[in-house]
C-alpha cells in the first residue's frame, strides 16, 4: 500500500551533538579524551560538583565553535552567554548543565548537499556550546547503577537544523554532510563509535498544510541508524493516523537489535529546566578581528575539494570516495597529494585513480603501512610509469607491494626490476640468454624437472656467465622456473 503513503509529507529536523576536539574539558583542565581511560579518572573539582568549584571556560572550544560557524557558512555571534539548565540525575554532578540558552554562539547558517544529482539546502536554526553529562550504567540484574564522570564536562556543540528535510535519505545525507563539514573544519575528531557525533531526529508526518505532531528519536550514532529511524518513524506515524489513532509528542530511542524505535518518555508534562544565566561565567565577547584570524586559517572545506576534484574530471562516485577517505585515514593526506601533483603539473587524475582503485581499498583493509611516505612513492611510481615500462597489472602489483612497506624502496626502478615487474628490452635479452642456456644444458634441465633444486643454481650461473654478470639472478631464477614448469 505504498501509494497511499504518498499522501503524507514527512518533515524532519535534526539536532546534532558534536563533541569538540579540545585537549581539555569545557570548564576544567581534565583531559577530554575519555576513550581509553578508567572510569572516573578524568575528573576535576568542577566535574565532580564539589562545593566552591567554579567553571573556567576553555577558549579552545570557542575557537572550534567559530570554525563550526564558518563551516556552516555563517559568522559566529560576537556576544553570547552561558545559562544553567537544571535537572537532577546522578550523572549531572552540579544538578545543572551549563549551556547557551538565550544567546548562543551561532544563529543561522546552512548545510548544502547533493543527493541523487539534486541540490539540497538545510537551514541551521542555531548552535550552542554546552557541557556533556557523565555516563550512567545500569548493570542487568543488579540493585545499583554506576556513574562514570569522565565524560562530564566534555565540550559539545549542539547544532539545531530547521525542519527542512522530507525523507529519510535527505536526513541521512544531511547528517553525512554535517559530519564532513565538522571533520574538515577540524571541529571534532568525529569518532562516531565513541559518540563524537550524536543525532536526535524530530519526525512528523502530515497530509495537510499543517505540521503534524512530532516524535524525537534520540542518540543515533550512525548515518544508517538516522536513515532507519526516520523511515521507521514515518511508517509508524502514518500507520497510526491511518488506523484512526493520533501521534503523541514523545521521546523515543533506536533499538538496533530490534530495528525499531521505542518509547522512552512522553512529553505531555514538558520538563521545566528553570534556565537562568550562569553567574559564574562572564559573557563570551569576541570581535571581527578575532573571527577573521580564525577564518584566515580555516582548513579547506569538502566543497573546495569537490570542485578541485571535479576539475580533474573525476566521477562523482570517485570524488565521494576520496572526500571520505581523506578524513577516515587522515594521515594518508590523499587530497593534499592530489593537489601537489596538480600544482607540479603531474598527472593528478591518474594519481586519483590509483588512490581510489588501489590505495584506499587496501587502506580500508588495513593492508597499508606506508603512512606519510606515500608522497615519495607515488612520485617515483609516476616517473616510472611515464617511461611506459610497466603494464597496468604490474603497476598495481608494484603499488600494492610498496604500500605494505613502512619505507618505500630507495630506488623504485631497481625494485620493480628485481620484482620482475618491468617489461624492458633487457628482459627480452635475458629471455634469449636463458633459452640458450636451457638449450645447451639438457642434463641440468632434466635434473631441475625431476626436482633437483641444486641444478637451478647451475643454470643461473650459466646465465650470469653468458650475460657477463649483467643479469638479475633473482629474475633469472623466476624466468627459468617459469620456463621449466
Amino acid at each position, binding site marked *: 500500500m505504498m501509494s497511499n503513503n504518498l499522501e503524507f509529507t514527512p518533515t524532519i529536523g535534526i539536532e546534532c551533538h558534536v563533541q569538540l576536539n579540545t585537549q581539555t574539558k569545557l570548564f576544567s583542565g581534565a583531559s577530554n579524551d575519555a576513550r581509553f581511560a578508567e572510569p572516573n579518572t578524568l575528573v576535576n*573539582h568542577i566535574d*565532580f*560538583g*564539589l*562545593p*566552591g*568549584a*567554579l*567553571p*573556567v*571556560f576553555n577558549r579552545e572550544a570557542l575557537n572550534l565553535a567559530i570554525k563550526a560557524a564558518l563551516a556552516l557558512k555563517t559568522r559566529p555571534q560576537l556576544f553570547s552567554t552561558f545559562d*544553567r539548565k*537544571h535537572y*537532577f540525575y*546522578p550523572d549531572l*554532578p*552540579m*544538578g*545543572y548543565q551549563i549551556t547557551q540558552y538565550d544567546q548562543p554562539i551561532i544563529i543561522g547558517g546552512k548545510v548544502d548537499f547533493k543527493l541523487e544529482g539534486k541540490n539540497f539546502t538545510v537551514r541551521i536554526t542555531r548552535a550552542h556550546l554546552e557541557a556533556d553529562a557523565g555516563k550512567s550504567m545500569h548493570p542487568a540484574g543488579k540493585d545499583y547503577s554506576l*556513574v562514570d564522570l569522565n565524560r562530564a564536562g566534555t565540550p559539545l556543540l549542539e547544532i539545531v537544523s530547521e525542519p527542512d528535510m522530507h525523507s529519510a535519505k535527505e536526513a541521512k545525507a544531511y547528517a553525512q554532510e554535517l559530519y564532513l563539514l565538522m571533520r574538515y573544519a577540524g571541529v571534532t575528531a568525529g569518532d562516531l563509535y565513541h559518540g563524537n557525533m550524536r543525532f536526535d531526529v524530530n519526525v512528523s508526518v502530515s497530509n495537510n498544510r499543517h505540521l503534524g505532531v512530532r516524535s524525537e528519536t534520540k542518540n543515533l550514532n550512525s548515518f544508517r541508524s538516522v536513515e532507519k529511524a526516520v523511515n521507521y518513524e514515518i511508517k509508524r506515524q502514518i500507520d497510526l493516523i491511518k488506523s484512526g489513532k493520533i501521534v503523541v509528542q514523545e521521546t523515543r530511542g533506536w533499538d538496533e537489535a530490534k530495528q525499531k524505535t521505542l518509547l522512552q518518555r512522553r512529553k505531555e508534562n*514538558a520538563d*521545566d529546566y*528553570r*534556565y*537562568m544565566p550562569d*553567574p*559564574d*561565567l*562572564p559573557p563570551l565577547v569576541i570581535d571581527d578581528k578575532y573571527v577573521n584570524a580564525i577564518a584566515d586559517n580555516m582548513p579547506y572545506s569538502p566543497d573546495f575539494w569537490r570542485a578541485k576534484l571535479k576539475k580533474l574530471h573525476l566521477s562523482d562516485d570517485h570524488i565521494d570516495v576520496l572526500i571520505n577517505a581523506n578524513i577516515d585515514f587522515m594521515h594518508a593526506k590523499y587530497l593534499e597529494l592530489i593537489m601537489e601533483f596538480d600544482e607540479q603539473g603531474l598527472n593528478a587524475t591518474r594519481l586519483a585513480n590509483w588512490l581510489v582503485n588501489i590505495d584506499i581499498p587496501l587502506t580500508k583493509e588495513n593492508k597499508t603501512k606506508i603512512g606519510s611516505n606515500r608522497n615519495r612513492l607515488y612520485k617515483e611510481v609516476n616517473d616510472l610509469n611515464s617511461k611506459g615500462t610497466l603494464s597496468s597489472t604490474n603497476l598495481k602489483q608494484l603499488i600494492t607491494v610498496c604500500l605494505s612497506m613502512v619505507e618505500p624502496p630507495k630506488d623504485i626502478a631497481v625494485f620493480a626490476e628485481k620484482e620482475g615487474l618491468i617489461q624492458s628490452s633487457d628482459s627480452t635479452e635475458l629471455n634469449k640468454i636463458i633459452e640458450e642456456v636451457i638449450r645447451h644444458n639438457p642434463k641440468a634441465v632434466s635434473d631441475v624437472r625431476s626436482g633437483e633444486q641444486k641444478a637451478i643454481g647451475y643454470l643461473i650461473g650459466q646465465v650470469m656467465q653468458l650475460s657477463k654478470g649483467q643479469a638479475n639472478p633473482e629474475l633469472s631464477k623466476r624466468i627459468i622456473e617459469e620456463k621449466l614448469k
Partner: protein
Amino acid sequence: MKRRWGQWEPIESLAESVRSKRISATSLIERSLKEIKTYQEYNAVILTLENRALAHAKQIDKFVNEGKNPGKLAGVPFIAKDNFLLTDSETTAASNILKGFIAPYQATAISRLEAEGAICVAKANLDAFAHGASTENSDFFVTKNPYDKTRVPGGSSGGSAAAVALGMVPFALGTDTGGSIRQPAAFCAAFGLKPTYGLVSRNGVVAMGSSLDCIGPITTSAKDAAVVLDVISGQDTLDSTTVKSDPKGYSDISALNLGGVKIGLVKEYLNQGVNNEITVALNSTVEHIRSRGAEMKEISLPSIDLALACYYIICPAEVSSNLSRYDGVRYGYFNADVKDLDSGYIRSRGIGFGKEAKRRIMIGTFVLSSGYYDAYYKKAMTVRTKLIEEFKAAFEQVDYLIGPVTPSLPFKIGEKSANPLDMYLADVMTVGANLVGIPAVSIPIAFSKDNLPIGLQVMARQRDDRNLLALSMAIEELINERD
C-alpha cells in the same frame, strides 16, 4: 571605640614581631587557641584546628630561624567562616547535609593567606549556607553576641564577627551576599569590609548567590582590613569573575584628608524606620565628618526601596541552583533507606537541609519556573540594572555614600526567627551594594545606652576599595578623638 576584650596589636606589627623574633608564631597561635577556649560559651567556632595551626606555626618559626622570609602575615592567626574549604579539613557551611565533608582542596583566599604566613586556627559558625542574619539558621547552634549573650551576633558571618570581637584572632574571613559581613560587624563592634564584586576569588567558597557573593575580612580596624585585602585580592584563573586588584595595593593606605571630600547621605535609608539611637549616632558622626571640611549632601536613590525585594528574588534563584549539587550521591548526607532514586533525593535533601535552605530553594525554584520567570526573575534583573544606573548617577555627584548598616540594634535570640520576613528586613540597607557590586564597609561608631554596638555603612564606586578604606581610617580617627 572602647572594646571589652583583650585586643591584638595591628596585624602588620604582629607579623613584624614574628619576623624579627620578638615573638614566636607558636606563641601567637597558643594565645589564639587559649582565647578560643576561654570564650567557648559564645559558640563562635564550629571547629578548632589546633594541630594543623600549631604545626604551621612551628614551620614559620623554623623559617624565621633559618633566615627565610615567612611572609607579610607571618604567624598571624585567623578564623575562616565554615563555608571556606580548607584542604583535608571538615567544611560544613554549618549544615547537616555537609556534616563530615572533608574538603579535598581549599579556597584561593585561604591559600593566599597561608602563602604569606597567616595561620587558620578555627572555622567559624554561620547561618547554614550563609542564609540568614543572626546565625540562628546554623544547623548546629546559635552564636551569642559578645556584648549581650541574649542577643544575636548578626549573620551570616556571625561566628567570624563574634570571634574578632572576643579577641580570639586579629581577623576573620567572612562572606557577604546581602550584608553578611557588614551587619554582623555592626552588631559586634568590628570593622567589616565587603570588597568590590570579583576583587577576591570565590574559588573554594561554598556558593550562595554567585552574582552577589563577596569575600572579605572582619577586623578591628580599617588598616588591618586593608592589610588582609592586599593579600587575598586580585585575579584568579580559577574564578572567571575576578578583577585585578588596585595597582597601588591596599596595605600602605593612610587616613584620607576629609577636606573637600564629597559624601552623600542616602535619603531613602533615613526613612526606613531606623532605630532612634542609630539615627542619633549617625547624625553625630556625619556632623563630625562635615566639621573636618567634607561636603555632605543628601542623595536620592529612588529605586533603592525595591532593592530588598529584588534581592530576595535573585538570591534565592541562585541559591536554588547552587544547592542542586548537594544530592548525597558523591559526598555529604545520603539517606539510603529508600527504594528509588527520586525518594533518595527527597529524603536526603529533605533531612539534610534546614528550614531556611528549603525556604530559599522553594522561592528560587518558583521564580525560575516557566511561566513565572518573566514576572519575577526577569523583572528583578531589570530592577538590578536600574539600581546600577542610579548608583552610577549618585557617584557622579559624590565620591562616597553613607548611611546606617542596619535599621535595628542587635536583636534578641529568637526575636525574629519565627518570622522570616522580619529577618529579611535586617538586610534592607546592605543588599544594595551587593546588587550593584560596589565596595562597602561597616565601621563601629558608637554604643547604645544599653551598650549595644552601632555601625556606620560607607559605600564607594566599583574598584575604589583603596579610597574607601582610607576614608574609613579617617572616620576611625575621628571616633577615637571623640572618645
